C-alpha cells in the first residue's frame, strides 16, 4: 500500500460520496412513493432522464445553469407527478403488482421514447463554466461541479425532511402511510395526499436529474440503468426509509467509484447487484429499514 494508492483511493471515495448524494436524492423519490403508496415506480429512471433533458434544454436554449433551473424543473415534475397520480395511477392502488408494473412500464416506454423522438439518440451534456474548477481539501481535490451537486442534493433532502416532519400535509401523508384506514376514518383526503406524495417523489427525481446532468451527459438509454440503480439503492438502504435511501446512495456511489478504480469499470455494477442479493436475503428490510415490513 503506497501513499499514492491510498490517495487515489481516498479521491475515489470522495468522488463516490459526492455522486452518491445525487443518487440518494434520486432514490429518495422512489422510496417516498413506495413507502406511502406501496407502488413501485418502474418509470423512475425514465423520469430521471427527462429531468436531465429538461435541464439540458434550459442550458442549451435559455443559457440557464441546471442549478438555477432546478426549482422550476422540480415544480414541473411535482405538477406532472400530481397529475399522473390523479389520472393514471390512482385506480391501480391496491391492484396486483403485475398490473401496476405493466402500467408504469407503459409510462416508462412513453417517457423514454418521447425523449428519443424529441432529442434523438445522441448524448447531450452541459458544459458549465465551473467545469474544471476544483477545491483542494488537504491532499484531496474535489470537483466543483460534483461538490455543488452534492450540496444541492443535501439541501433538497433537508427540505424534504422538514416537509415530512414539520408541515401539516407532510404529517398527514405519514399518517396515511402508517394506517390507510385510520387516515380515512379521521377524515384525511387520502387520494389528494397520494397525489402530493407522487408529486414530491417526482420532484425529487426531477431535481436529481437536473443535478446529474452537470456530472454526466444524458442519453435515452441511461433510463433503464437508472431505474435499476434506484431499486438497488432503496433496497440496500431500506425501501420506504428516507435516511436509508440517502445512505444507500452514498454506499452505491462509493462502491461504484472504488470498484471502478480497483477493477475493470465494466465490473463495477456487479458489486452493486451482489450487494443487492445479499441485502435481500439477509436483511430484506434494508440496512437502515425498520425490522417489520
Amino acid at each position, binding site marked *: 500500500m503506497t501513499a499514492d494508492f491510498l490517495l487515489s483511493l481516498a479521491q475515489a471515495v470522495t468522488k463516490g460520496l459526492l455522486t452518491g448524494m445525487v443518487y440518494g436524492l434520486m432514490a429518495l423519490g422512489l422510496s417516498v412513493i413506495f413507502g406511502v403508496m406501496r407502488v*413501485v415506480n418502474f418509470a423512475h429512471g425514465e423520469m430521471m432522464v427527462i429531468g436531465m433533458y429538461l435541464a439540458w434544454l434550459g442550458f442549451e436554449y435559455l443559457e440557464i445553469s441546471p442549478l438555477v433551473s432546478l426549482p422550476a424543473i422540480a415544480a414541473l415534475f411535482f405538477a406532472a407527478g400530481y397529475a399522473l397520480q390523479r389520472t*393514471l395511477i390512482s*385506480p391501480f392502488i391496491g*391492484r396486483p*403488482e*403485475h*398490473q401496476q*408494473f*405493466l*402500467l408504469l*412500464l*407503459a*409510462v*416508462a*416506454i*412513453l417517457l*423514454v*421514447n*418521447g*425523449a*428519443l*423522438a424529441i432529442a*434523438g*439518440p445522441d448524448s447531450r451534456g452541459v458544459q458549465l463554466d465551473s467545469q474544471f474548477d476544483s477545491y483542494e481539501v488537504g491532499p484531496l481535490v474535489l470537483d466543483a461541479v460534483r461538490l455543488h451537486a452534492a450540496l444541492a442534493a443535501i439541501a433538497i433532502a433537508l427540505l424534504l425532511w422538514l416537509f415530512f416532519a414539520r408541515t401539516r400535509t407532510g404529517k398527514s401523508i405519514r399518517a396515511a402511510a402508517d394506517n390507510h384506514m385510520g387516515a380515512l376514518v379521521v377524515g384525511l383526503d387520502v387520494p389528494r395526499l397520494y397525489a402530493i406524495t407522487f408529486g414530491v417523489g417526482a420532484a425529487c427525481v426531477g431535481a436529481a436529474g437536473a443535478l446529474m446532468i452537470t456530472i454526466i451527459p444524458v442519453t*435515452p438509454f441511461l433510463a*433503464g440503468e437508472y431505474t*435499476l440503480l434506484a*431499486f*438497488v439503492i432503496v*433496497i440496500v438502504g431500506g425501501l420506504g426509509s428516507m435516511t436509508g435511501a440517502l445512505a444507500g446512495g452514498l454506499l452505491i456511489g462509493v462502491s461504484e467509484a472504488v470498484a471502478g478504480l480497483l477493477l*475493470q469499470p*465494466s*465490473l463495477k*455494477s*456487479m458489486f452493486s*447487484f*451482489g450487494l*443487492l*442479493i445479499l441485502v*435481500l*436475503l*439477509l436483511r*430484506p428490510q434494508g440496512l437502515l429499514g425498520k425490522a417489520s415490513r
Partner: protein
Amino acid sequence: MNALRRLTGNCTPRTLWSLAALLLLLLLAPAFLGKYWLSVLILILYFAYVGQAWNIVMGFAGQLSLGHALYAGLGGYIAAGLFFHYGIGPWAGLFAAVAAAALAGAIVGYLGFRFSLAGVYFALLTIAFSEFTRIGFEHWSWAGGSGGLFLKVDAASNLLDLRGGPVMFYYVILALAAGALVLCRALLESRLGRYWLAIREDAEAAQAVGVPVLRCKMLAMVISAALTALAGVWNAFYYNNLFPETAFAMSRSIEITLAPIIGGLGTLFGPFVGAVVLTGLGEAFTDAGDALGIPGIKQIFYGLALLVIVMFRPAGVWPWLSARLGLGERTP
C-alpha cells in the same frame, strides 16, 4: 384415452373443434405464407411458448419473476457454446442447457422462497441474478465475452444440428408451443397445479391445510426455468448470435412477461393471445414508424397500446375474448 379425457375433460366441443382447426391451420401455414408472414408467425409462437413457461411461475404459482432472461440466456449460451466449441449438436446440448437453467431456477427459487421474499422483493432478486450473470458472461471468454458468440449460418436444412431455414424453425417452435400448452394443461389438472393455485390465492392458508408450499414453489421455478431454457436454445440457433447485454437484459425478461400479462395471467391460452396482440401491434407500428421516420415513434405507439390494454382489460384480453366467443376455458 383416459389421459386424453382428463386433458380435455371440461372443454366444450366448440373449444375442442376450434383448437383442432387452429392446430391444422398452423400446421399448414408454411405452405401458403410468404417469408415475412412466416417470420411474424414464428415470433408469435416464440413469445407464446416462452410466455407459457413464465406463466407457470407467475400465473399459476403467483411468484413475480422479472429475471427469466437468465434461464433463456443460460440455455442459449450453453447449447450454442457446446456446438461452437465442440461440435456437440443442440439436441444433446439442450440437456446440459436445461439442467443448468433448472439448477439456476432452483437456486434463485430456493433463496427467494426460503428467505420468504414475495412480490416486488422476489422480482428484484430475480432481476439481480440475471444482471449479475450478464456481467459475468461479459467477462467470460469461452462464451465470447461482450463481443458475443456467433454460430455459422447454414441454409441446408439439418434438423439434427438445428441448422436450416425458417420453415424448420417454425415447426420446432410450433411443436414446443403446442407441447407447452398440453403440459401446462396437464399440470393445472394435477395435484401440483391445484396446490399452485392455492398458494397463489393465499399462501398462508395453503400452508395451514398442509400444502408443501416451499416444494411447490420450487417445482414451479424449476419447471418454468427448464422450459424457458428450451426457448433460449431455439432462439440462439434461430438468430445465430448471442450477446450478454441482450441475452440477459432486463428488457428481455420484461418481453417474456408481456404476452401472458396482456393475454390473461394464469390462463392457458392467454400467452398465445397476448403474443398475437403484441407481435401484431409491434409489426404494425414498425411499418407506421418507418413511414414517419421519427426515432422511438414505434415504441411510443407500443407504450400507448400497453397503457390502453392495462387500463381497460387489466385481467388480460383472453378472459374477455373467450367469453365473447363462447370458448370455454375455466379460468382457474
